[in-house]
């Protein structure tokens, strides 16, 4: 045991004596903020994504590797609005990095810069996993990404003033391309306006708000509570009077209830990436993520039975 400990100490000393990397270390809670920080920071930043699009960001283990990354980071970029409530407080408590504390300069919450939707009027767990600050899945509307880009670029410049000009230039470039892309997606998605859909989870409020899609039901009877067979049957029966055109769900979700519903209702499905990396070719790429999102919605709408 002493040998292990002294070996570990030696390893620590070795690491401590190495010169600190010049890059700004960014700890991104979600893949969308990792992609945005990479786009705005380029070679000046070293970005770590704590979660992937294949994970449910509510249910992340505050595992040792995350604590180690948190300890070394200069900037924390998260959605906030208590999306990370199940694990971020543990990283704060165990990660011993005062720079990233709430309110400290190294703490950046994206949800502060957008208008929150679905702020509940009543908070009761009988309603499921309710969220007092509103729906935290702001990244499903590309206009929100655009709103977060400027303050994030400013934050990078504040923490790394030596490269402030770089961040400003990269932001200008990103913003120009992003604005054009949003216009392109909005135009392409015009046929989706008013289309009624069933969602896997209550995760798409911002996407639907952007494209004018109408959510008529969710597979979960209550948010965060897995759908029961009885509820699925009830939804299926309800489709006769309240028809939907497709089932929209995120790559990380349990596919079983979605497959059941698709099979029994005959509705097409649209598996959306939700975050960069949630579909092939979208790794760390916000542009590709929305290309795929819009395309899959349009494809599903085309397959939808005429009513």
């Amino acid at each position: 045991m002493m040998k292990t400990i002294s070996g570990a100490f030696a390893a620590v000393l070795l690491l401590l004596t190495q010169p600190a990397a010049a890059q700004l270390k960014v700890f991104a809670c979600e893949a969308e903020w990792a992609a945005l920080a990479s786009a705005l920071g380029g070679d000046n930043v070293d970005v770590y994504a704590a979660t992937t699009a294949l994970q449910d960001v509510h249910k992340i283990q505050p595992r040792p590797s995350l604590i180690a990354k948190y300890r070394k980071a200069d900037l924390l970029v998260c959605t906030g609005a208590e999306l990370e409530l199940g694990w971020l407080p543990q990283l704060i408590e165990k990660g011993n990095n005062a720079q990233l504390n709430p309110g400290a300069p190294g703490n950046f919450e994206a949800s502060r810069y957008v208008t929150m939707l679905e702020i509940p009027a009543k908070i009761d767990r009988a309603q499921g996993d309710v969220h007092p600050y509103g729906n935290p899945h702001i990244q499903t509307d590309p206009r929100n990404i655009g709103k977060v880009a400027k303050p994030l670029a400013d934050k990078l410049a504040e923490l790394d003033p030596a490269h402030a000009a770089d961040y400003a230039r990269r932001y200008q470039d990103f913003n120009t391309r992003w604005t054009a892309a949003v216009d392109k997606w909005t135009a392409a998605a015009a046929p989706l306006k008013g289309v009624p859909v069933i969602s896997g989870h209550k995760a798409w409020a911002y996407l639907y708000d952007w494209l004018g899609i109408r959510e008529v039901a969710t597979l979960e009877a209550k948010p965060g509570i897995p759908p029961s067979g009885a509820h699925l049957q009830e939804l299926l029966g309800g489709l006769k009077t309240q028809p939907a055109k497709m089932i929209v769900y995120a790559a990380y979700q349990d596919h079983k209830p979605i497959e059941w519903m698709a099979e029994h209702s005959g509705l097409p499905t649209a598996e959306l990436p939700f975050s960069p990396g949630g579909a092939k070719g979208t790794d760390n790429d916000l542009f590709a993520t929305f290309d795929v999102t819009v395309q899959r919605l349009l494809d599903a709408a085309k397959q939808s039975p005429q009513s």
Partner: protein
Amino acid sequence: MDRISILARGAALAVFAPLCVPAQAATGNVFNPKISLILSGQYAHYSNDAEAEMPGVVLGPETEFKTSGFSLGESELVMESNIDDRFHGWATVAFENEGGETVVAVEEAYINTLSLPYGLAVKLGRFYSDVGYQNHQHPHAWEFADAPLVYRTFLANQLGDDGAQVRWLAPTDVFLEFGTELLRGDGFPAGGDQRDGIEAWTAFTHIGGDVGSGGSWRVGLWHFDGNAVDRRSGEDVETGFTGDSRIDGIDLVYKWAPDGNPLVRNLVLQAEAMRRSEKGTVVYDPDGSGDTSAYDGDQFGWYVQGVYQFMPRWRVGLRYDRLSASNSVANPVADTSLALLADDASTPQRYSAMVDFSNSEFSRFRIQYNRDESRPDGEDADNQFIVQYIVSMGAHPAHQF
């Protein structure tokens, strides 16, 4: 209005949201501590009604089995809050059922620092020690309804004490932390009289990382050193111990989920081993017969367990426990705890299996079966059934890894 749109409207009030949500609405209580109440209870059945004693050790206080029949489990009131920009506070008050009586106990009440430099953190007050893996977990977070045998015998279920903890997290890519705790020495296996300084201390190190996209692990090594002066066992006829108690431990945990997404399937494997050395004097019935003996003992205990979620909400778990001892007891008076302590030939063991169902993050129901062979040789194996519920209300704080 048809059914679906009613459902959709109901769901629109709520929002797909995280594990835990503070219950603070837009009223004047936003600066109140986050409060949560854990309620649990169980029904227990035992095929063997004999006293829950174990050969080769003297059990600590509150280590008897859960009361037979219906009983209230460990119900806890948890309050936590940031105190200011530099300190955070936490308190857990537990309501327990002890031999038919309800006892209110302050399990934890501590403050910890939020903004020390160089990766340091300090905790002050009463807290569960960070030694071992299961030790820091509150009973409602345990994967089984009862503690592993080695925890029950060596630590009286869990090591908690008053004191100070210092923890340093190394700035490395591999998770590496070192910590030490200086303690009052009230927590078993320390305890007893003359608690007027640092009567116990611990040291621990944790190393951890990821394996692929779905696995993560942590290994811990630790040491406990405590001083006991007439430490009482808490049984009907008590046994006192005066001397030194030392424990060396190793703990391993491995968690896995496909792509790191535990939603549908996930696995938790954990194993711990401890060696305890005690040297001093034991007294059987110090307030009565006062039979005394010199005692020099080594005990070794371990458990291994796995819990697998095979579909949303449903988990199954298996656990195996084992203990052995090598004790020298100079005066093993027959029919006393001294003779029981001297009985180091048998190896207490236990097999456990459980199934649990969680309707949401906040409610869990569990059925557990133990085949308990931890009593002295000659006693029948005990077939134990426990049906348990655990629910959490309010802003329940995130659990540690």
